[in-house]
């Protein structure tokens, strides 16, 4: 503070004449004037309007079919059955029939949805252990096992969604054709390749690596046998497990189950119109917590799924901005323009 810095002489303590110290830094002082604010508002109204319309058109071009199967079709039997915990071990399959009026064109995504399932509870999320699922060696796995003996541990993994679906197309003529679903590539790349890693051991199979570990309480199969068809899709890097482990932010959510495999007729252009049945292996109990289960079939655009909120919000916002802009213009015209109020 005003200390002498090696200077001497009569003006030794004179402060430096720098723009910074004298608070004269060159600066720009913008002000909210009619010339800037009003055009800005009109411009924003226009932009929002255009965006809204564009997004609305985009979203309209997608199709979505939602099917609550909790008690639908023959599933009411299973629903009743799952009410009783003692029946947990028994399998139960059911079928739901639905029809598609208009063909779903392009890639069709198959989701399962849950309602009122709180994946976002703090204790639920805290119960997982990310460290366990990137272990690199079997011995390391044993070590973490001492702490948490169930690989993968925690309420998240334990509560994995275990219904499975097969979709069948009943064309207007001809036989029923099972709809091929691609069950892989449904996870984030980073999850599949970085976040989840199986313990590696050159000489051992996965089963050997996991030997001696118990499976989570509600699981019918151990972690290394999750996908019987594809041995590389087992253990911690099982796609379904990874998808489930990415906890939803809200209690109502949907998760990707599979993608339509557009390799063969009649599915090369998407799902044709007609009748479909879903065979459900009904395992996941939702009645305890008053939850609902659904399947969702949808097509996508660059904007994602069929969510009308943003387009509508943009349109509403646009109208509001326009309204406000007009109000401001009037206010400015009546009061501010002549600058009388700006006088002293």
């Amino acid at each position, binding site marked *: 503070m005003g200390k002498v810095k090696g200077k001497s002489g009569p003006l030794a303590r004179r402060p430096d004449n720098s723009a910074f110290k004298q608070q004269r830094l060159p600066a720009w*002082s913008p002000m909210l004037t009619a010339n800037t604010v009003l055009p800005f508002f009109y411009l924003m109204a226009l932009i929002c309007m255009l965006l809204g319309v564009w997004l609305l058109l985009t979203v309209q071009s997608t199709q979505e079919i939602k099917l609550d199967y909790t008690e639908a079709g023959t599933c009411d039997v299973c629903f009743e059955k799952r009410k009783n915990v003692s029946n947990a071990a028994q399998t139960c399959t059911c079928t739901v029939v639905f029809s598609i009026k208009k063909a779903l064109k392009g890639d069709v995504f198959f989701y399962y949805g849950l309602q009122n399932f709180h*994946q976002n509870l*703090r204790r639920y999320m805290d119960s997982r252990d990310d460290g366990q699922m*990137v272990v690199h060696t079997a011995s390391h796995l044993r070590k973490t096992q001492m702490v948490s003996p169930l690989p993968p541990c925690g309420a998240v993994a334990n509560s994995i969604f275990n219904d499975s679906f097969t979709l069948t197309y009943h064309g207007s003529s001809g036989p029923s054709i099972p709809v091929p679903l691609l069950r892989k590539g449904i996870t984030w790349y980073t999850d599949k390749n970085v976040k989840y890693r199986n313990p590696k051991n050159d000489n051992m199979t996965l089963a050997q690596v996991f030997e001696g570990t118990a499976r989570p309480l509600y699981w019918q199969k151990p972690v290394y046998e999750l996908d019987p068809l594809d041995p590389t899709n087992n253990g911690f890097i099982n796609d379904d497990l990874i998808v489930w482990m990415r906890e*939803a932010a809200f209690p109502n959510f949907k998760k990707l189950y599979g993608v339509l495999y557009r390799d063969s007729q009649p599915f090369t252009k998407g799902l044709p119109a007609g009748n479909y049945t879903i065979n459900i292996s009904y395992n996941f109990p939702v009645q305890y917590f008053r939850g609902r289960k659904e399947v969702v079939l949808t097509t996508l655009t660059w904007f994602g799924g069929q*969510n009308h909120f943003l387009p509508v919000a943009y349109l509403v916002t646009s109208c509001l*901005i326009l309204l406000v802009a007009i109000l401001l213009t009037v*206010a400015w015209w009546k009061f501010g323009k002549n600058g009388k109020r700006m006088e002293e």
Partner: protein
Amino acid sequence: MGSVASYFGRLGGKEQKKEEERLFRANDRPFNLSYHYADNAIKTSKYNLFTFLPLNLFEQFRRLANAYFLFLMALQVIPQISSLSWFTTAVPLILVLSITAVKDASDDINRHKSDKQVNNRMVKVLIDGELRNEKWLNVQVGDIIKLENNQFVTADLLLLTSSEPLNLVYVETAELDGETNLKVKQALTVTGDMGDSIDALAGFKGEVRCEPPNNRLDKFKGTLTLDGQTYSLDNDKVLLRGCTLRNTEWCFGVVIFGGPDTKLMQNSGKTTFKRTSIDHLMNVLVLCIFGLLASMCAVLAIGNGIWEVREGSVFTVFLPLEQGVNAALSSFLSFWSYVIVLNTLVPISLYVSVEIIRLGNSFFIDWDRKMYYPKNDTPAQARTTTLNEELGQIKYIFSDKTGTLTQNIMTFNRCSINGKAYGELFDFSGQRVEITEKTARVDFSWNQLADPKFTFHDHSLLETVREGNPEAQAFFRLLALCHTVMPEEKKEGELYYQAQSPDEGALVTAARNFGFVFRSRTPETITAMEMGRTVTYELLAVLDFNNVRKRMSVIVRNPEGKLTLYCKGADTIIFERLHPSCNKLKEATIGHLNEYAGDGLRTLALAYKPLDESYMDKWRQRHHEASTAMEGREERLDELYEEIEKDLLLLGATAVEDKLQDGVPQTIEQLAKADIKIWVLTGDKQETAENIGYSCNMLREEMKEIFVVAANTTEGVKEELQNARRKMCPEAAEEPSVKKARAGLFWLQKTETVQDEKVDGDYGLVINGHSLAFALEKNLQLELLRTACMCQTVICCRVTPLQKAQVVQLVKKYKQAVTLAIGDGANDVSMIKAAHIGVGISGQEGMQAVLSSDYSFAQFRYLQRLLLVHGRWSYLRMCKFLQYFFYKNFTFTFVHFWYAFFCGFSAQTVYDEWFITLYNMVYTALPVLGMSIFDQDVNDRWSFQYPQLYTPGQLNQYFSKKAFVLCMMHSCYSSLILFFIPWAAMHDTVRDDGKDLADYQSFALLAQTCLLIVMNIQLCLDTYYWTAVNQFFVWGSLAAYFAITLTMYSNGMFLIFTSSFPFIGTARNSLNQPNVWLTIFLTSLLCILPVVASRFLFIQLRPTINDKVRQKVRKEALPAPAPRRPPARRISTRRSGYAFSHAQGYGDLVTSRRFLLKLRSRPPLFTQTDSPLAQNEPQLYRTIAEDPEESQSP
């Protein structure tokens, strides 16, 4: 803190009983040590190496906010509660604690250094019969020490002997009481006889009994017992630590009090810690926030309870309850979990940031070149760094006069001799010419004894004198003879005058330059050089000045044997005593006097009277009788004086200018425009004070009336005050309207506010010390306040320092307004300490005022820059900062609140923990600091152009409880947008490749990105003044956010610290989605546009003064220069103050021998500042009770 230190001190085993009486023997260390008196080491530091950490931490955790965060950390350790990782509070807390600790440590190191420096000073101590050099800290009570000239007094000493005759020593006490004049101390003869004989001193076995250590500087009681004889000791025989020995070769003294017991250190009581009103408001707000926090947590806890019963209980299949936890307990735990999650409502970085901003603004004050005074190389200094924003809220200024408004320099400006006026210049058309620096000065080089610093511009006067005009010569002869000035001529021709009042000095100097040089005096003679001829006058009598007589006379006999009485005094007094033959001359002189009065000059009338030898003989006889009379001496002398001072012959009048400091009237005008009321509190006489009031434009001729309250009884004062009030505002109620309210923490503090009353026209109030004493009594103080506040100008004269403080306190108490006191002398210290803000003028009267002030600079005129520019900006910046800071933290926290309704009230956070940790510390810290350090609505020139810009500060308009509530509502709106728009946009959507986007991690990222972007745009909207630094901070913060986020969500970080960075890949996977960006855009738009719209609307409909001026700034680049008005010519009918600034003359001293015994050279100005005080705690000294120089009652 003091209590803690003393507590630890006591632990150290130094338990002390209260000392009843001090007893010690000189030269007897073993005896004295048995009493465990404190030695001379002082310690102002708080910590040492080992106690620093515990003590400092203890100190810091006494702060509510810090303790709160410690408590939060403790909560976070409990696993059932912990909703956030420990680092979210630990990192900010450690940062805050360490910043404060570093600051405290550096302060303490400085104190250690200065302690060490003071303690290690060397002094000669008499030990075992020889003088040894010892460090100060080793000096013990009872030691005899030797001091030499210009040395600091080591401890409180009993003076034993001195080099000077009569055992006198001279000390300068400026450090103690601020007075620069030397004080004389005298040793007892019995000790003084020892001289400098070491043997005698070593054998000195006196025993001293005296009072215990105390803080009374002006009193000392004790006895010295020597060889069975007891001598009493008083303050005259004691040298106090903090004084400096002057004009004395050496002296010996015995130490009475050492180190902490010295009166100096005893006076260093606790300085009252000043806090700003914003501080108080902040405390209240933090309390409100705690309340809000508690209620939010309670709502959420209840929510949790309900949820657990309705939903959680059935969800236990997937998430089993922990053992022993039921809904009620879960609800209780969730309350504390939410206390942790929502802790950001109470911003930990608030206090730190506030301190940083204040520090920054203080540096700007220190650095301001426009407040630097080149003449004595003094920059402005912000001595307190915590009060800046209060500078922008000042409503009342209390100013000292001498040395603050005026320079305390008198100049001989005009005179009227024999009916002819001199001193002004006229051009050929008879127009008055303004005298400037460039005007040709009168050349005095013919006179070798002339004072080169004296300037005069009217040549005609010198010509008149040199022509030998008898009246002019008599005029200057009078000035050269009739005074009590002491001359000092070290070298032939180099004359210095030591005058008791600067007026006298100015007059004698004028005479000296006009050829009547006063050269020397003895008690009986005065020698003068009259136009080159040495003349010695015999001085027969000095009829001294006092406040009642208002005149002084001398009776001299010239070499020719003619007796003359020369008299100078107040014009009214002199005119009463004139000989009738002077009537015509009197009229002319009165005309001139009125003119001078109109210019605010201090005048004296001069007269003489030739005396008859025989009459004089008789008179002297009677005078001798009277002056030796035991009873009624004063009255008899007065009578005699009265008798001889009559039938005087008028010579003329002098006008002395009490030079105002530069720019004082303009400053006062500016401050008045800013609606700041200025009260002048001065120890001066009423006339002088009024004079200054006129000359600095506070009192004006066009004022409707100027009330003078000068009654001497309670009733009288009451009546005068009431009359004045009724005159100003006849319709006002008799009883003052007092608004009672409660304020402060917990609303414990009762406040009473006297409402302002509206008055038409300008009035002035002059009140003198007596009346003030009555008016400040309990039953009258409200009356005084009401009346005074109705007036434009209030001048209190002849007030004591205590009264100054009382006046300040009165206004502080009943006006709830921010006050500022400005002064330069020791007599202003009490008022400087009492006011919210004390400003010291680093001027001539010593350092006292500066040491206890909060801000100091060299010239009164810098006050307008301090207030109108720095103060205003500081206030503006602080308010903007607070508003924005609360906004950003509330918004941040409220989002958690909304999310609670979606996550089963489980205390799940919306954002990533790292974001929570870094939000206040990294992402938003610099931009807001940038705004609150650099922002200015308009630059300094416009601030001066429109002082009205200052008024919002006085009315607390920028930040108040109302603004806080508005800010909270704004946050509420923003947080709703910030949560629900992303929620609606995301909850049912997926990425463009069908994969997850509505997962928790992506949503967290989206929410925090939206928040940060909105906060930055809001900051941009709030910033008036965009420097490159601001731009850099804003963009830099955003860039840092994305950089840090991408880093923390990267593979590497995950693989190294798996459990700390689970958000791997989130940024990459969701920030490449167009709908994420569209959501961010919409959110920002919805948050910002309403703000823009409402601000724009307010500018259109109800523009504030700031808007108006800013509008003007846009149109014109620079403000039009203020028109320079020529000084108006005033003719006043008001009789001016006479020029005597002191109360009582030196008369008896001049005629006594003692004064002349020793008159040593004294350096004109002490440049030495290297004193123990200046380095120690600056604000240590409490005050000195009385102003010795002017405030005594007549």
